[in-house]
């Protein structure tokens, strides 16, 4: 078990280093407006993938809590939701920077994906209001995990479904071609997929550390509750 987790950390580190460094060197298609910023695909998009992965982990553990009523699953949900908030910040900031130099503005309300992501982050903030606000621990866990399932579904609707129904500037949405068709050629795939795996691995690594920290805090700090 210990050896596997060490191998996982080493593989994650190698994938991250490879994608960060080779992402600057690989030949990319020369497209107008995008120019070299197409390389942001290796840095901006995997952060969002890691964030969605963490949201999925949180939702999965919330379902397990509601089925088995064991508090340790809700601890997992809580740690995963903290990671969602943590990964949404660099995702938003890099997205804004990229938008400034390709779409010409920091934020546009015509873009459903940006609005959707802002709303989903607010939904996750409400999750924390809810969990910190209910005095009873058992009730917190039940309400919090039920709400967490809801917020995961809403996030998926707001960032995966809604942008595809209306017009959107993001690739793959609202009639725009996805990265799969011609923006993402085979040379870029050799960096993009390792980058996604590396960032998902990093998110899981950090989530594991946060989980252990919260466990220690809960059982040994003398605090009544951590959520």
């Amino acid at each position, binding site marked *: 078990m210990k050896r596997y987790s060490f191998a996982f950390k080493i593989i994650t580190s190698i994938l991250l280093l490879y994608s960060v460094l080779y992402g600057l060197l690989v030949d990319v*298609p020369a497209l107008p407006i995008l120019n070299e910023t197409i390389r942001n695909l290796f840095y901006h998009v995997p952060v969002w993938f890691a964030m969605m992965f963490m949201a999925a982990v949180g939702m999965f553990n919330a379902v397990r809590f509601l089925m088995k009523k064991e508090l340790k699953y809700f601890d997992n949900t809580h740690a995963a939701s903290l990671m969602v908030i943590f990964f949404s910040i660099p995702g938003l900031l890099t997205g804004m920077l990229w938008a400034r130099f390709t779409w010409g503005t920091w934020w546009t309300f015509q873009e459903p994906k940006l609005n959707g992501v802002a709303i989903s982050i607010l939904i996750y903030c409400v999750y924390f209001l809810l969990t910190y606000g209910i005095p009873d621990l058992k009730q917190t866990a039940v309400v919090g995990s039920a709400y967490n399932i809801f917020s995961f579904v809403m996030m998926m609707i707001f960032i995966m479904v809604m942008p595809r129904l209306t017009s959107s500037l993001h690739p793959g949405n609202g009639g725009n071609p996805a990265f799969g068709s011609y923006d993402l050629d085979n040379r870029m795939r050799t960096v993009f997929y390792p980058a996604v795996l590396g960032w998902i691995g990093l998110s899981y690594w950090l989530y594991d550390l946060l989980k252990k920290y919260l466990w220690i805090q809960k*059982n040994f700090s003398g605090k009544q509750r951590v959520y």
Partner: protein
Amino acid sequence: MDSKEFFRKAAGVLILLFWADSALAQAEMADAFRSEGKIYVVLAVIAVVWICLLVFLFYLDKKINRIYGECKTKMQSGHE
């Protein structure tokens, strides 16, 4: 196909596509920046920063895992 040839072909296609809008016709890439060769210095700097970060993460991971293990055994031997 080397990158120069690809660039020329891509530029040709784009000029055909956007012949009316000459501002969009050229997709400028950082070719001159790369031809100087010193991009590798930047890569080395990024590599050093990331390796330091990851080493620190390994160190932190080891510390938290150790204290976590200690707390686990403490709990099993009747802490609560």
